[in-house]
């Protein structure tokens, strides 16, 4: 069964197409990631699935309910942690959770129990009486994750769950997310523009760019599309013999030489390194240095979009500014 099913989902903001006919489905229990630069359409996708904005066209189903027709059932089935904090800073931690639990129609006993439970999970039990305006960024984030869990959602949306957090807190939150998914069986959809985050957490990743999903698979398979690892060796001596020898081995996909450095593309590079060194020794070539590089999702993104995520963000920022100017000119 699918927790989420999306077909040709599209959102058009006054002529700017934020999400462009995307289709995908996510089976129950999966930890799925939408990866892409700012402005790729990830948050808009989440907002449509969470019933906060109406799709321009296409359809979406969450936990078996249509996001256009059956909004209340969708709302009942999901938990959402938004990209920007959505807490009432004039209430304390526990009051924020109480508010949420009552909005979800939970009884007094159940509320107390669940709130104690989630506060413990995110280690905020001691801070429950502190006004949220005095929380640090990491504490706010943890409180929001706790809040998303109170009503035991079947599907949890996490929009940039670790944006702007320090490395230690990020690590903590990653652990919660993993645990929730593996032990709690919650289907999780997260968005991120941190490559290492998506790589570490997700069972499957959809790469989004300019409102479209350009690739979707497990992180491993996505990286394997690039042909595997890159092994670079620095060598002294005549290389021609060695290159002729290596040419005969069919597990080497590509070979390029740059001065005295030989770069080979191959799968499971770490297992092939001894073989390569042995071959070099046989041909009387001295290997001075070996370097193994696993392809990252950054390389995958580059492969699919022709740009690195950083470049993409720079150009998107430019677009946003132009877009804002045009809106301001019209509206104010």
């Amino acid at each position, binding site marked *: 069964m699918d927790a989420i099913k999306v077909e040709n989902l599209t959102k058009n903001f006054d002529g700017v197409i934020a999400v462009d006919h995307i289709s995908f489905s996510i089976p129950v229990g999966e930890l799925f990631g939408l990866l892409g630069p700012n402005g790729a359409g990830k948050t808009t996708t989440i907002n449509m699935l969470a019933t906060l904005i109406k799709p321009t066209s296409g359809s979406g189903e969450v936990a078996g309910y249509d996001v256009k027709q059956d909004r*209340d059932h969708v709302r009942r089935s999901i938990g959402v942690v938004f990209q920007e904090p*959505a807490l009432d800073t004039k209430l304390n931690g526990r*009051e924020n959770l109480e508010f949420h639990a009552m909005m979800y129609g939970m009884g007094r006993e159940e509320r107390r129990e669940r709130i104690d439970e989630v506060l413990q999970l995110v280690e905020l039990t001691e801070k429950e009486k502190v006004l949220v305006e005095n929380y640090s960024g990491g504490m706010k984030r943890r409180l929001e994750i706790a809040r998303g869990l109170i009503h035991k959602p079947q599907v949890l949306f996490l929009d940039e769950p670790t944006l702007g957090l320090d490395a230690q807190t990020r690590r903590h939150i990653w652990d919660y997310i993993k645990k929730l998914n593996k032990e709690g069986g919650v289907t999780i959809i997260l968005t991120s523009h941190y490559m290492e985050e998506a790589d570490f957490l997700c069972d499957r990743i959809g790469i989004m760019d300019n409102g479209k999903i350009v690739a979707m698979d497990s992180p491993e398979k996505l990286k394997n599309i690039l042909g595997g690892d890159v092994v670079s060796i620095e060598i002294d001596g005549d290389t021609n013999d060695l290159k002729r020898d290596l040419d005969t081995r069919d597990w080497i996909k590509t070979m390029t030489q740059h001065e005295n450095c030989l770069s080979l593309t191959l799968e499971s590079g770490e297992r092939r390194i001894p073989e390569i060194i042995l071959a070099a020794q046989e041909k009387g070539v001295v290997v001075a240095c070996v370097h193994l590089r696993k392809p990252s999702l950054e390389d995958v993104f580059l492969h699919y979009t022709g740009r690195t995520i950083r470049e993409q963000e720079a150009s998107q920022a430019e677009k946003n500014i132009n877009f804002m100017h045009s809106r301001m000119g019209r509206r104010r």
Partner: protein
Amino acid sequence: MIHRAAIYVLWLREMKRFVRSKSRIIGALAFPLFFLAFLGLGFRRMVIPGLSEDINYISFLVPGILGMSLLFSSTFGGLSVLWDREFGFLKEIMVAPVSRVSIVLGRIAGGITTALIQGLFILAISFLIGFRLSSLLVLPLALIFMVLISVTFLGLGLIFASKMRDMQGFSIVMNFVIFPLFFLSGALYPLENFPVWLRVLSSIDPLTYGIDGLRGIMIGQSSYPVVFNLGIMVAFSLIMIFLGAYFFEKSESV
């Protein structure tokens, strides 16, 4: 579809926020109290045309200032949706499995309560500077008018909040909606002194009937019969609340 728990918790949140923001309470009270004190004391001995001789200016002014306080606090209460949008909390409210009507009702319940508390506080202060009701029994009737005024302008605030994207338009609403409504209502002077065209304008201002009704009840002098004022205010509050809920439902929450 009415979710009572949701209405209650939205009201409760408003109460907690109200009690915790001392500066907001003081700010909301200071403005009408300054009006009351300075206008009331400054014009105390003035003979105001249109005002019968056995009513002093302070008695005339108190219901007006009460209406003013309700106008401001209720419109701001409706506009507070914008604050929630600005601080992201609106998303938390809107993503909950609760009917939009319940959300509007919860906001209104909170808005009425805070507006009434402020109104009663102003009434208490005005007793200190010499204002007297004809009898304490009229207080419940006055409360009905206060609720109707509050509901009307909560609806108005909600309409603006649903149509505005951010706080930028706030001062426009303040200067071109709230202040004209206040000055046209006859809160500070008898409307009989207005030229005809201004009287026409003030006759479409809900606050005119709210304040006139309060005067009729509290000091026994009004331009229209109290029952007429009551009918008009009931109609206004129903229309405004319906429109407020309608636009709120239509607006996108992010």
